[in-house]
């Protein structure tokens, strides 16, 4: 742990004994109350589509993560992880700027090789290309890096972004490894309160999901139409196009079974693999529901087919296109 306000001890958070002690301590009830309060607020803010990225101390964060597992609502889990991801990024950026020693200590504890000297930060190329995938912009492509001898010189923003992605991966691994029965045992005395939170979230979530209405193919942006055409023509799609398509269709409410059916047309279709990938992207396996990439990412990966579509010029994200078209007054 770097400061008592900042959760970075992955070993602590993954230990049921630690969480049990923190959650059921009679002498220090603060972490438990803070975690409950935090989750309730996330749910409340979720209803208004607002963010709630408050810094949690180590114990509260651990308790909240385990409680989220017990609540077991996909969208709540991903919202929690996204909020805490952003908290993490802000905190790590603060350390990079003001407290190099603690920053190095964090990387050491998280088993990440970072080399810092004279304010220059270097990381191994393999760390860079493992965590740059979901970060858009040409500054995150390997070809534009200051690379020498296997090490890349990164700026503060870059390293904070990469560590953020690494944080998400680590938290997802811990989340997936949490045993729900064990979590239920730990939070036995809070069962009814947790049930109330769950019910409240389910209600809000149902309302949110309804807003997009039924899937309307005629409102799709040109990129998604192109991917679907390619599938119809039995072509294999590049990985990022598949990812974009699945996350897009999922966001607008298509069921996983319908999506898997669409992929039956691709030449390398493999039901088990496709199911796995769809479930990963839609959060069933990964715990994170991925959003489609922004237009700029698609463009830099040669997957944008905007041509001269006027609406494309006004938007930055494929989902924006769908929403604008769908709710446009005719």
């Amino acid at each position: 742990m770097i400061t008592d306000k900042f959760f970075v001890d992955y070993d602590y958070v993954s230990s049921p004994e630690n969480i049990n002690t923190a959650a059921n301590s009679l002498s220090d009830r603060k972490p438990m109350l803070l975690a409950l309060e935090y989750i309730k607020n996330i749910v409340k803010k979720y209803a208004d589509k607002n963010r709630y990225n408050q810094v949690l101390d180590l114990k509260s964060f651990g308790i909240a993560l385990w409680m989220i597992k017990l609540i077991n609502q996909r969208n709540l889990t991903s919202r929690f992880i996204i909020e805490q991801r952003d908290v993490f990024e802000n905190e790590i950026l603060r350390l990079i700027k003001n407290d190099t020693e603690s920053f190095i200590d964090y990387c050491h504890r998280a088993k990440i090789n970072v080399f810092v000297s004279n304010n220059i930060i270097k990381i191994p190329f393999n760390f860079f290309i493992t965590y740059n995938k979901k970060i858009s912009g040409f500054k995150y492509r390997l070809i534009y890096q200051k690379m020498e001898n296997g090490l890349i010189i990164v700026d503060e923003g870059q390293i904070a972004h990469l560590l953020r992605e690494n944080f998400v991966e680590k938290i997802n691994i811990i989340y997936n490894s949490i045993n729900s029965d064990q979590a239920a045992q730990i939070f036995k005395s809070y069962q009814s309160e947790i049930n109330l939170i769950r019910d409240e979230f389910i209600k809000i979530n149902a309302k949110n999901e309804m807003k997009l209405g039924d899937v309307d193919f005629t409102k799709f942006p040109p990129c998604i139409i192109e991917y679907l055409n390619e599938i119809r023509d039995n072509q294999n799609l590049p990985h990022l196009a598949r990812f974009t398509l699945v996350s897009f269709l999922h966001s607008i409410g298509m069921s996983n079974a319908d999506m898997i059916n669409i992929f039956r047309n691709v030449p390398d279709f493999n039901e088990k693999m496709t199911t796995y990938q769809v479930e990963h992207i839609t959060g069933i396996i990964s715990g994170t529901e991925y959003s489609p990439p922004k237009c700029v990412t698609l463009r830099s990966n040669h997957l944008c087919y905007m041509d001269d579509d006027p609406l494309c010029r006004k938007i930055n994200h494929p989902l924006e296109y769908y929403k604008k078209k769908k709710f446009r007054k005719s």
Partner: protein
Amino acid sequence: MEKLELRDYFRDYYVKNPIKPPDLLFQREIGYIPFNGSMVRHRMYNNNIEIERFVKKIVPRHLYYSSAYYRHPEITRMQEKEWLGAELIFDLDADHIEGANKMTYAQILDEVKKHTLRLINVLMDDFGFTEDNIHLYFSGGRGYHVHIESDAVYQLDSDARREIGDYIRIEGINIDDLKNLDDDFFNYGILKKLNNYISEFYENIDENIIKSILGRNYNNYINYLQKYFNGKKIIDFFTDKSGNKFKIMDSFDAKNKITYNRDIFKYIIENFKKGNLAEIDEPVTTDIHRLIRFPLSLHGKTGLMVKPLKIDYLRDFNPLNEAIPDVFKEKEKIINIKINKFEIAMNNEHFILGNGEHKVPLYVAVFTNAIGVSDFVT
């Protein structure tokens, strides 16, 4: 019968020469194409003795192992094999070389060698791999394979490997991104090489090239190069090896409504890429389940060995002399050439063979038979 006779020669090779199994053989999927039949996959051998015994018995026409390590390499379903990691593989062959269809086999091999040398330089200078990590093989066919064995690569997924592939192929750089980079970026890797290339382009500026790009504006451009940007003549700014040259487009050029540089830079980048990229087969690099030729096996379409090479020997290596198995050098064989003329230099000898029967060294017989231009005469 033909195929069976070729198989006999291959057997002779395998009986007298050990193959070179990869590390952790028991975690590798083994695949092969027999002389009669189609690809067989999902085999597993626990140790060198087992695989040697298998190769001598089956005598495969082509033999492969998986770049991946699996917990259960013998299971047919990919998902159940339990992928544990994979070597990083680069495949360089004639298929990706411009104009290869007009080259002789020896010319193709030379051209692919150039690309292989470029690849190895980038792997060592930019990626920091050492000779211990880089395993180089003549493929036995029309190129080279480079295997990276290092903890830095085993766990990389396809997307991460694609980034490496793009870097090697200098894929995805464009002027609009480049002009936004700080000067410092041009002191490293590919961009440093690009800057050197730009500097040389302007040091030896070629009138004809500029004319072909700008046509009538040639004189204007020459005048432009004599103007001053940030207290320096533009031509000197371009010949200086450091700093970002592309940023002039957003400052001086934009202010003076000058648009020449976009076309010139485009030309420079295209030519720089041609001279510096290594043409690898990217799908091979990104495939984390790939089967790759087994070291010291024979290539079924040439009869040449998949030969391990020391990196510093690559420049001097001549596959048509040095990848011939000794067992094929010891005998002669009569063949019937089925095409009008076949010409090749092998084992320091030049062969020009017209249609009809010839008595040739066995390696020529095997080679011509394997590529399908001759029959064995019994």
